[in-house]
């Protein structure tokens, strides 16, 4: 409908003007090699004073942002091809376009802080220390995958990296995330938990229940709404009466962040971590966008126009933003960046080749990891004749 497209296009492209103009104030301090960059838009706060627009960063950090985001982007595109080649089956939810959230968040925290998210978890897994091989092997159902091939795309976990998954049911990870924060408070760690959910999940009752409890007990929980404006095929304005998700916490303060700007994400996450350790929960709304459809079975163009997608890609792409910064500060040349991208592409291709060589899990793996100690119960395959195993 004409009315709907008009609304969504203007909402998404309203960030256009500030980025193109020369409003950005840039200063380079050569002696300490700190660069101060202003975020594309100021933060908007709800019941809280937002942090400053000026973010300090270093050339190394910007380079690492570029590398990590380019790797994530490359990985997601590769996963797209693998899915179409039927090497990845089932559901595959791709994160390209949203990389800045993963990368900016990692820059602000350490591995003792916990991150938990829903099913769009491939890139966050990489950010938390997951390897390409583990993720491709898991996607292809091989036994060297991070969950031994038994989880799949929606169940990536990395315990040592503080990444708690990887959950298929929309919204179910939010109480889990508050549980992680509860454990952190219980053990008196000075760490926080970032619980990520989407704009679709923002209408789940569990969110508000968990928010109430986190606020009641001052849990160090940071609820991050990755608002990519579409809950599968339903635009946010068709699902939520109040799409200002950062305000929905009511008594819990909120911050709206440009999720396509890795530096803004970093600033917001750092601010949120400080806040959560002192005052309890805070909501961050990351205004972001996904280029692919909801999952590989969704073309992504029936509920939004291709112009909208390409418009956002041209104006707000997170990797392009960092590339422009790197070029304008002479941290790297055009060629160097292209070489890095080529190198990453090779890395991804190698990982895929290696993952393709990985063996599939043994049939006995069907019955492992159900119980920890095991109950001695016997289990059979479906026809009661094969794969007899005693639950170990």
């Amino acid at each position: 409908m004409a009315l709907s497209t008009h609304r969504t296009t203007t909402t998404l492209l309203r960030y256009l003007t500030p980025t193109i103009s020369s409003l950005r104030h840039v200063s380079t301090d050569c002696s300490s090699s700190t660069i101060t960059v202003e975020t594309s838009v100021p933060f908007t706060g709800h019941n809280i004073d937002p942090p400053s627009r000026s973010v300090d960063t270093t050339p190394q950090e910007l380079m690492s942002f570029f590398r990590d985001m380019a790797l994530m982007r490359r990985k997601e595109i590769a996963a797209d091809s693998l899915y179409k080649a039927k090497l990845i089956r089932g559901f595959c939810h791709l994160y390209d376009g949203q990389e800045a959230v993963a990368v900016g968040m990692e820059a602000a925290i350490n591995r003792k802080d916990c991150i938990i998210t829903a099913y769009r978890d491939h890139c966050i897994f990489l950010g938390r220390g997951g390897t390409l091989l583990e993720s491709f092997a898991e996607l292809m159902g091989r036994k060297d995958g991070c969950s031994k091939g038994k989880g799949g795309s929606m169940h990536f976990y990395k315990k040592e990296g503080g990444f708690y998954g990887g959950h298929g049911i929309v919204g179910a990870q939010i109480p889990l995330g508050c549980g992680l924060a509860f454990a952190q408070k219980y053990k008196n760690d000075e760490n926080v938990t970032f619980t990520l959910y989407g704009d679709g999940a923002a209408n789940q009752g569990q969110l508000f229940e968990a928010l109430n409890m986190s606020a009641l007990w001052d849990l160090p929980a940071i609820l991050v709404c990755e608002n990519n404006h579409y809950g599968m095929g339903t635009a946010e304005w068709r699902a939520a009466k109040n799409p200002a998700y950062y305000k929905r916490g009511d008594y819990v303060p909120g911050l709206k962040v440009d999720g396509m700007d890795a530096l803004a994400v970093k600033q917001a996450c750092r601010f949120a971590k400080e806040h959560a350790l002192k005052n309890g929960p805070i909501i961050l709304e990351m205004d972001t966008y996904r280029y692919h459809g909801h999952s590989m079975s969704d073309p992504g163009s029936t509920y939004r126009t291709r112009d909208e997608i390409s418009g956002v890609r041209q104006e707000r792409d997170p990797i392009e933003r960092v590339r422009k910064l790197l070029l304008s500060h002479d941290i790297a040349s055009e060629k160097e960046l292209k070489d890095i991208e080529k190198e990453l592409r090779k890395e991804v291709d190698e990982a895929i080749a290696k993952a393709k060589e990985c063996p599939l899990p043994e049939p006995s793996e069907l019955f492992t990891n159900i119980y920890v100690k095991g109950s001695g119960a016997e289990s059979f395959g479906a026809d009661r004749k094969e794969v007899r195993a005693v639950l170990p």
Partner: protein
Amino acid sequence: MAAMLQTIGVASPAASGTFPDHQKFFVSSLHSLPVIRSEARLNFGSIHGSSRAGKLIAKAVATKGENSAASAASKAGHELLLFEALREGLEEEMDRDPRVCVMGEDVGHYGGSYKVTKDLAQKFGDLRVLDTPIAENSFTGMAIGAAMTGLRPVIEGMNMGFLLLAFNQISDNCGMLHYTSGGQFTIPAVIRGPGGVGRQLGAEHSQRLESYFQSIPGIQMVACSTPYNAKGLMKAAIRSENPVVLFEHVLLYNLKERIPDEEYVLNLEEAEMVRPGEQVTILTYSRMRYHVMQAVKTLVNKGYDPEVIDIRSLKPFDLYTIGNSVKKTHRVLIVEECMRTGGIGASLTAAINENFHDYLDAPIICLSSQDVPTPYAGTLEEWTVVQPPQIVTAVEQLCQ
């Protein structure tokens, strides 16, 4: 139905001085004290991880005379009610391991709606005995998230029926996370609460969730029925690295029994031999155990010799104990409080038929509750659950 005092054969009266005359002993059968064939099941040594401070007693009820040497050194035990036994088990585990915490509605300051957590909040603090808002779905999820990091939460559902709101968390996150994460996370959570048909509590507060949860892969289910096994199972459930659902029954909280003073933990996967016999195997659990024992009095007077087993472990079934019994008696009667359709009895019937078909002389009879919402009216409610006369008739029919 009068609450029956359950016998506990800790030692024979021959042991010197351990059992003074004033000890109350209510023998529930005319035969000798129950015997447990648990020698083959002493696989406790293979449990990894958790260190056990107390002596583990593998047998649910000790044999007569066998433990007399040990018991001579032990004290007489103390008498308490079932809910106190649960509290004792919980308190001992909380003392032992600082990671154990309790979450639920009104468990803290109020002391628990059935007083299972009474005074624990005063002792351990508000964070360890957490009063949650009425949000089953999310506080269950919260507890599971905490368990992923290593805490050992005990989640209380004020009534098991309320946990239906948390079904997604229990099924997906509690049961399946260990598997979908490839073994990275364990969920050592305990989910407990009272269920079953009470005294005219109405349909929604008389639910039996065993049948709904039994298909969830990755969880274990146990049902306690006496103060002795309530405390032992509570401790075992907390120490287990797997998620365990502990089913209590609203009407059994005031059962009184004498339990040992020394620490004991029971096996989560073992059934309890209540009364050995030769003629017919009666399998039951939770409150129906008492209906069965009442029927057994009548049956014994009529000359029958039933073997009564409290299966205790609802998932997985203790097919070893059950199988040995079936091989001996060749006749099986299952008495349960679940609904007829898709209940524990239905699964147990299938399991016994599959595994022990050749040993059966007669088809298995399964007595379950009616497939109706539990009515409020007292008489109607009585007819929804299995009553002792029906059990007697079923045994007579089975033994023709």
